[in-house]
């Protein structure tokens, strides 16, 4: 933006860092592969060789180009095909609802179709999203494998406290045990993406406290209650 300083349109958010995504070192991807292979009881990972990750089929779609129609509402799947399989979608839907459940602040992630946006994201043809694909797809596979290892069911079919038991081990990377560090990176990334989608929807706006995107004949600024709390006066 010419570049008068403007935060991303989402002023509150830490951007998803599309252009500056730390590049996942190949060895990390390989560790993933080992973790997934181990969890899936596939034996010695090395038999599969290095890359590409067998669980991460590439996407073949193209981007929307430099001149897409802008004043139009798009839905996930409309611009490029979605690629998560049923198993992955089930795991992702369940995980998103654990992270963003229905409560007094608003509906569950699944009610606002968060998973469609996650699917669109990991199915996108751009480099940054492809890196996420390499985290997300093995991560979702790992989630089911871990659920199976602990509770003999896929993640989506676990009881809430069982899902929580797994999430508690991976929800915060600095506190995660060594074995769960990689899964914790996946969890952090998934949480970011699910929240990015959830809060982009009108129910998400209400949940976070955004008021706007509506025309008005005047702009009144913060109400007195806000000014009083901050100890400031309106100076314009």
């Amino acid at each position: 933006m010419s570049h008068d300083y403007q935060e991303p349109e989402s002023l509150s958010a830490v951007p998803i860092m599309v252009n500056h995504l730390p590049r996942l070192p190949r060895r990390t991807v390989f560790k993933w592969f080992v973790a997934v292979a181990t969890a899936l009881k596939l034996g010695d990972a090395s038999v599969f060789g290095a890359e590409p990750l067998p669980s991460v089929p590439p996407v073949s779609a193209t981007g929307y180009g430099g001149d897409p129609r802008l004043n139009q509402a798009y839905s996930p799947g409309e611009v490029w095909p979605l690629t998560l399989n049923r198993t992955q979608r089930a795991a992702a839907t369940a995980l998103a609802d654990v992270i963003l459940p229905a409560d007094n602040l608003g509906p569950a992630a699944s009610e606002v179709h968060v998973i469609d946006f996650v699917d669109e994201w990991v199915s996108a043809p751009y480099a940054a999203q492809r890196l996420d694909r390499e985290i997300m797809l093995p991560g979702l596979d790992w989630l089911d494998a871990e659920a199976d290892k602990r509770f003999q069911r896929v993640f989506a079919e676990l009881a809430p406290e069982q899902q929580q038991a797994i999430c508690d081990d991976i929800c915060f990377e600095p506190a995660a045990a060594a074995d769960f560090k990689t899964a914790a990176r996946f969890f952090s990334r998934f949480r970011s993406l699910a929240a990015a989608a959830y809060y982009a929807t009108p129910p998400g706006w209400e949940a976070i406290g955004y008021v706007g995107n509506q025309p008005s004949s005047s702009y009144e600024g913060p109400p007195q209650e806000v000014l009083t709390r901050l100890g400031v006066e309106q100076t314009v």
Partner: protein
Amino acid sequence: MLTIKADEATKDYDVIIVGSGAGGGQMAFTLTLAGIKCLMLEAGRAYDPVTETPMFQRRDQAPLLGNATPDKEFGFHDATVDGGWQMEPEPYTQASDKPEEQFWWWRARMLGGRTNHWGRISLRNGPYDFKPRSRDGYGLDWPVDYHEIEPYYTKVEQLIGVYGDNHGLENTPDSPAGVLQPPPKGRAGELLAQKHGKTLGIPIVPIHRAVLTQKLDADRLPAVLFPGNNWAQKIVGDAMRARSACFWATPCGRGCSTGANYQSTTVHLPPALATGNLDIVANAHVREVLVGADGKATGVSFIDKTTGKDVQVNAKAVVLAASSGETVRIMLNSKSPLFPDGLANSSGLVGKYIMDTVGTSLQGQIPALENLPPYNEDGAGGSHFYAPWWLYKDAAKLGFPRGYHIEMGATRGMPGGGNPLPDDLGAGAYGSRYKQEARRYYGSFMGFACRGEMIPNDNCFAELDPSVTDKWGIPVLRWHWKWAEHEQRMCDHAEQTFKELIETMGGTVRGVTTARNRIEPGGKIIHEVGGAIMGSDRNTSVCNGYNQTWDVKNLFLVDGTPFPSNADKNPTLTIMAMAWRAGDYLVDQSKKGLL
């Protein structure tokens, strides 16, 4: 917006204008309303903000939640189409492999150019800004002073509509009474910063932006701008009536379908077209300016991108307003026996002294802004407050001679598209605790950005690449860049200042930089100016104080190229003021038969 095909551009044109942004738009407006027949060439496609602008579209209605991609580098809803940091048909090269010695070149390829998405910040240069060398010995003076340009700043502000107010601050000019539109109310974070800025001596005041906070006075202003000219008054009045006041939603970077902010395509071009004196050809990629045996410009040769064919158009004068880099490229590619080193380049200075704005920023988290009762902060679709440079008196002891202003990002904007709760703050939160924490922290992050003056130096220039050409075989630019110590020190100071401000507000700085990576790369702020500087001596400048090249008197440069300095004030308003003045001069010279 109405354009014609390349092969329809057959009229007997007086002036060809290359570029349709702030400079080209203003020139077309000024000339056509003076009865001059103009042909405008735009390298990108035709564009109509009325029908194409995404107004009210939500992030969940855009691919990838509206996030930036290589196809849309400022996000899906950003107004710019067919442009960006890189464009495959039109590459550019760097002389150095070192990232800090490279130039980021943003280009728009659409009618209206960068004005469709710009931040609308419209600051006047002050008296010091025209005479920087005389004040401190660095850089270059302009051949004009503030008083010569002031009437044009006023006219531009009256035409485009700029909100803000007057504070009588040093080198931060007031506008005449009644010229500015009322500034919008301060938002929570801006008011909090203003209060705490005071204790640090930082004056945080309403910024000036080209957004209509009320409708333009179409019954009064046209007569002020065009006294005694009923025809021009009617056209300008009708154009003013067609623009709405801001309805306080939708970010300005998307453009504005109701014309509530300035973009060339809603403000300059409609009245220019209404005169009947303007034809616009889009997809016209200019190869060179043509010259006659007498050394005067005779026309322009361009590629019609829709057919790939070379087309030639003729006129009595040529105006380049293609952006600093592109104007330089056209001039250097316009080689002929009379001008073997490029057009109007007897000084050897075409391409030299290119500048950008010094940029760095810092974000803070402010506990006082947590959990505020929800209220609407969309406002005028951009910033409401800023801090003009306040330490003119301290230049000697600061270690850098020029100033910066502070822009700030307020807080409760449209969410989504990013993680609202950084991992370190959430400490692993998920479930309802995550949602509570996201709501608590939403609106509590503020960013502060330095926008500072760069002093022109010998290491920052553009030249033709000896081997690389674009899709049409035309040599491309090769960039050279090196920030000087002044700019690095300015960024050190700015970061320290932002840290103090954030901490005075009770907040915590988020993100740290190491000593020398805090300055944004050259070009990143997209305030590219210079490259064909104006001056009072034809041996040390490319054009005179009327944007007229010394060597070719019917060639004018009305984008940022003639800037011999780049004040911290964002350049667009000055580009327009200088272009209007150059247009008046061109009309006058033409009447006297001097072109």
